[in-house]
């Protein structure tokens, strides 16, 4: 066995000197949340790194809805789920159709629509929220799940169209031509040639839209207000309304709420990193 040279040791030490702070910085807020979730109230407020009596009691309270703030936990979880799924499906539909139309069919004015979409992508979300709120009121959609679904589709689809257009521009045009020679109709090309080839990008975009909707706080909190209509993040924000908020329950609910997106992200990581980062910034 060869002993490492002094130079190698010092390189490794310098890397560790960066790596350890990065690890701590990343994990502290998440660990703190987890710590609260497994601590009884007294332990949580005592500033310990590990509770004296770790317990799953908080989870039990949440799952049995045994607190004033948690009495609609399941329906709020369900709302988040339904809205995220609807946003994912609708965004995929709208964006795939538009990208196919712009990139493959080269529809007149397609470039103009692409620019409109890009422009929308660059409107800061919190700025659009103000007129969007008023518009939803005009349409009579406030406190209706459709308002949040449509708002999130509006926000998700520009980026989706752009990424899908970039991806479909890379497909060789000969594929479409060959299909036309074989007598395929436009819809058959879309269904049998285009969609299968675009699958990795579609997975990435679907995941992106679902996560965006699941994580959204601002629009959800503006557009929905009844306790039985709101999504989980809004319910979490409502915990703060009380002076004596049960922080250990808030963190437990937050932990449960954070698990699905983290799991989805890691499950689809290889699609996400390839499909999204390549599209996010083209240099």
């Amino acid at each position, binding site marked *: 066995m060869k002993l490492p040279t002094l130079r190698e040791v010092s390189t490794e030490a310098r890397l560790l000197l*960066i790596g350890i702070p990065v690890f701590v910085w*990343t994990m502290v*807020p998440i660990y*703190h*949340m987890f710590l609260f979730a497994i601590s009884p109230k007294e332990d949580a407020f*005592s*500033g310990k790194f590990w509770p004296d009596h770790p317990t799953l009691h908080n989870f039990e309270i949440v799952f049995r809805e045994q607190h004033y703030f948690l009495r609609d936990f399941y329906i709020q979880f369900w709302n988040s789920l339904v809205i995220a799924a609807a946003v994912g499906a609708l965004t995929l*539909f709208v*964006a795939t*159709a*538009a990208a196919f*139309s*712009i990139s493959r*069919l080269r*529809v*007149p*004015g*397609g*470039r*103009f*629509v692409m*620019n409109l979409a890009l422009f*929308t992508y*660059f*409107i*800061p979300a919190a*700025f*659009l929220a*103000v*007129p*969007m709120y*008023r*518009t939803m009121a005009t*349409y009579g959609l406030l406190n209706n799940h459709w308002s949040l679904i*449509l*708002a999130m*589709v*509006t926000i998700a689809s520009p980026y989706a*169209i752009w990424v899908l257009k970039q991806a479909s521009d890379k497909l060789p045009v000969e594929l479409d031509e060959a299909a036309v020679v074989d007598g395929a109709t*436009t*819809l058959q090309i879309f269904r049998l040639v285009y969609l299968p080839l675009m699958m990795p990008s579609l997975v990435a975009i679907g995941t992106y839209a679902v996560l965006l909707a699941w994580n959204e*706080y601002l629009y959800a909190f503006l557009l929905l207000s009844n306790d039985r209509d709101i999504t989980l993040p809004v319910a*979490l*924000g409502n915990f*703060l309304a009380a002076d004596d908020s049960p922080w250990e329950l*808030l*963190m437990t*609910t*937050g932990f449960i*709420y954070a698990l699905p*997106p*983290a799991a989805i992200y*890691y499950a689809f*990581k290889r699609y996400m*990193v390839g499909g999204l*980062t390549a599209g*996010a*910034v*083209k*240099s």
Partner: protein
Amino acid sequence: MAITVSASDNALPGAPLSARLTPPQVWGIVLLAPYLLVFLAFVLYPVGYGLWLARQPSSYVALAHDPIFARAAVNTLIFLVIGINLKMLIALFLSGFFVQERRWIKWLSVIFILPWAVPSIPTILSVRFMLNPEWGMVNQLIFKFTGDDGPNWLNDPSVALAMAIGVHIWKSLPFWTLILITGRLAISHDLFEAAAVDGATFWQKFRYITWPSMQTLYVTCTLLSMIWTLGDFNSVYLLTGGGPADLTHVLSTLGIRYLRLDQLNLAMASIVCAMPLVLPLVYFMMKRLSR
């Protein structure tokens, strides 16, 4: 805005529309329609309506007299100029760290993505409690080691704003680091080998190889991050709620504050005031991305 409408080349002027279009073009219009509807109903109409609401000069006079607005504008600038540049510099540095080939760095990079992968609400609230002056972990640690009471973190406007910037960096650093890593990995390895043969120092390699190949990407990322950060509502709202005494608002939380107070014209006017900052950035990004 560089917007061009590419009319179809074989269009015969005068013929009825349906005769001029081939079946694929008809399908193209049909398939484009859903997005156009979404755009008209939920972007064009709201934005137009909002601008119409912001037309009265009196709104801007009222804004100019609102000290909260001036403070929010300054806070937004601090957030963008200091926060974003700090974040991008760290991301640039860390991207160099994460391209090192070590098994433990691979694992660390998987963990490092977590802040971006988990929703921001519970984690920001987690930080908020950590900074609680009495019960939070930070001050309890300070007390344990020094015997002194720690600062009242979120009650001092400048410290609270710095903490909000910290939360923002915590949340979005992984994303930008990831992008810059892909930028670094795209640089040909031969260049570094040749430089090593010539005896180039670490700094020289960065200065003459890494930076020139990454500067376009870096600038694009910085501008894009600035635009998005203008719309970052959560980092400030969930950490400080704009407080203490409405001194840590940024433009995004201020707009929502006016909205909640039913002062819609003020909300829109404050957003219009941000346009001189937003539109040049958007114009630049559109030029860069729509090619």
